């Protein structure tokens, strides 16, 4: 039965121009920041997959963030407006199928689009140019894995808020607030993130902001070329904490949203 919900959501997405616009605008934004980032590479450094990944991942994370919020809020909250969700309940679908079916589609949709960006921006250049020496491949894979978990956590939060408020706009607003407010607060208060590997760091957007960017690097000379070597590394215990917290928070958000939806009237 949940499969029927998922199939119908995919059918709707293929015909809803919102998703096309959201994807196009996000990719346009990404293109602009990509061009700005690489304007400094017209001479000197050798361009490799690891350089692109190290410099671009921070900007790509903003794109991932936009995909996550825009898609998951729409899928979770929009169907309250035209009673699509009402009819799924009266067709005999259990509320758990209605809720978790949408959660699955929302999360997968956001992750899939983000994955396409990674393939286009990092994987294809790596195939063409080689990985290089700027960052170990394992370090980048770890960071992408942590970013994925954090995005899932964010989308679970947006889905919960969309169902509680019965509105995709409210869900999107909550997602943007959850993502931007911690960054604004730490920026305004000039707090160093190294001082904040605490619970609040783990549950906010600060963690994803840190794993997606590299602050420290050195220069080196390899095989006749100047290269940049990034020295930031994610500590194993930090990765473990982030992973556990992301999984726990995802479960808490999704179950909390379902608990509210299960017992609420749908008008």
């Amino acid at each position: 039965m949940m499969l029927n919900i998922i199939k119908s959501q995919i059918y709707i997405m293929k015909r809803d121009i919102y998703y096309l616009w959201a994807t196009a605008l996000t990719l346009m934004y990404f293109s602009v920041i990509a061009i700005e980032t690489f304007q400094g590479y017209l001479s000197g450094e050798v361009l490799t997959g690891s350089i692109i990944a190290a410099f671009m991942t921070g900007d790509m994370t903003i794109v991932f963030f936009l995909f996550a919020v825009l898609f998951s809020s729409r899928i979770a909250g929009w169907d309250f407006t035209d009673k699509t969700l009402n009819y799924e309940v009266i067709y005999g679908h259990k509320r758990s199928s209605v809720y978790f079916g949408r959660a699955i589609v929302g999360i997968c949709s956001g992750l899939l689009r983000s994955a396409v960006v990674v393939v286009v921006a990092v994987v294809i250049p790596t195939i063409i140019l080689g990985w290089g020496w700027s960052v170990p491949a394992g370090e980048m894979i770890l960071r992408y894995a942590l970013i994925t978990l954090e995005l899932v956590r964010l989308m679970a939060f947006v889905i919960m808020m969309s169902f509680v408020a019965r509105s995709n706009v409210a869900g999107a607003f909550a997602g943007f607030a959850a993502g931007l407010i911690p960054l604004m607060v730490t920026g305004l208060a000039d707090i160093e993130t190294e001082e904040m590997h605490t619970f609040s760091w783990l549950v906010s957007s600060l963690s994803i902001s840190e794993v997606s960017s590299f602050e420290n690097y050195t220069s080196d000379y390899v095989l006749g070329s100047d290269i940049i070597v990034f020295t930031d590394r994610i500590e194993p215990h930090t990765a473990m904490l982030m992973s556990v917290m992301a999984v726990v928070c995802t479960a808490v958000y999704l179950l909390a949203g379902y608990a509210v939806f299960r017992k609420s009237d749908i008008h």
Partner: protein
Amino acid sequence: MDKTVISVQNLTKQFMKQKAVDNVSFSIREGMICGLIGPNGAGKTTIMKMLGGLVIPTAGTIEIYGGSGEKELAHARSRMSFMIETPYAKEKMTARENLTKQCLQKGVPDTKRIDEVLKIVGLGDTGKKKVGNFSLGMRQRLGIAGALLTKPEIMVLDEPVNGLDPEGIIEVRELLLRLNRENHITILISSHILSELSQMCTDYMFINNGKMICFRSAEELRKECSDYFYIHTDNDPLAAAVLSEKLSVSQFDTDTDGSIRLWERLDDIRLISKTLYENGVIPLSMYVHEANLEQYYMNMVGDHDAEHNKISDLHNEA
């Protein structure tokens, strides 16, 4: 028509301080076409929403096909179709696309059924027209089409003829009667058009202020809504005996105050009064009462409102 398909016991729904549905109980048997009649705000739609699982009851139980648990009700609803309030549709999709989506949601593998139901409701030639450009009547038809997709065993329809022209109303009525006759589909239908309901329902539920006023079969209602002769005498039991023995009258009954309501020989007022007088019964009041369904309904709702206000006044005084 013996098997009970829907059974509702002491169903109550409270929104904040207001009881939208107050202790309602009824049973619907297989094959019935049951009309749910009441003024705006009476609780009709709320009852249908509770049957559909959209609104959680505050108290009471709902059983459909004998099951009352969440899983059993969900399974039972898959054998039903609902059309509650304005039918939903994605405005930027065509009628066919909307029904295709519903097929996916309902797990209906055969999309040929879409052509069949579109033809049944007269929307077979809408082509690429988006639902956003449909009239209200067309949207109602699309809602009915959606309700027919899975060949349901029970249909719950909330004012399905709302917005339809007279021809459309007749078509829907004939369609529902045919579905009931040929496929033995049980139908629960609400409408404000009482004359329309009277042409198809086998039973009626009257509801007002969230409470069930009465449940009548079509036969009982026909009797209560027919013209009758009202007779009140100085000896009503003797009057009843005289009518039965001297005039061979059988279609009458006595009210709680002893007065007689007579459904035959309405043109024989002189003969009736003469016979009563000759047998020692003095008529105190005699007249022909003209009734119809609308009047019956207005009287019932009016009486119920008066009773409701009386109870409220007593509460306020206390």
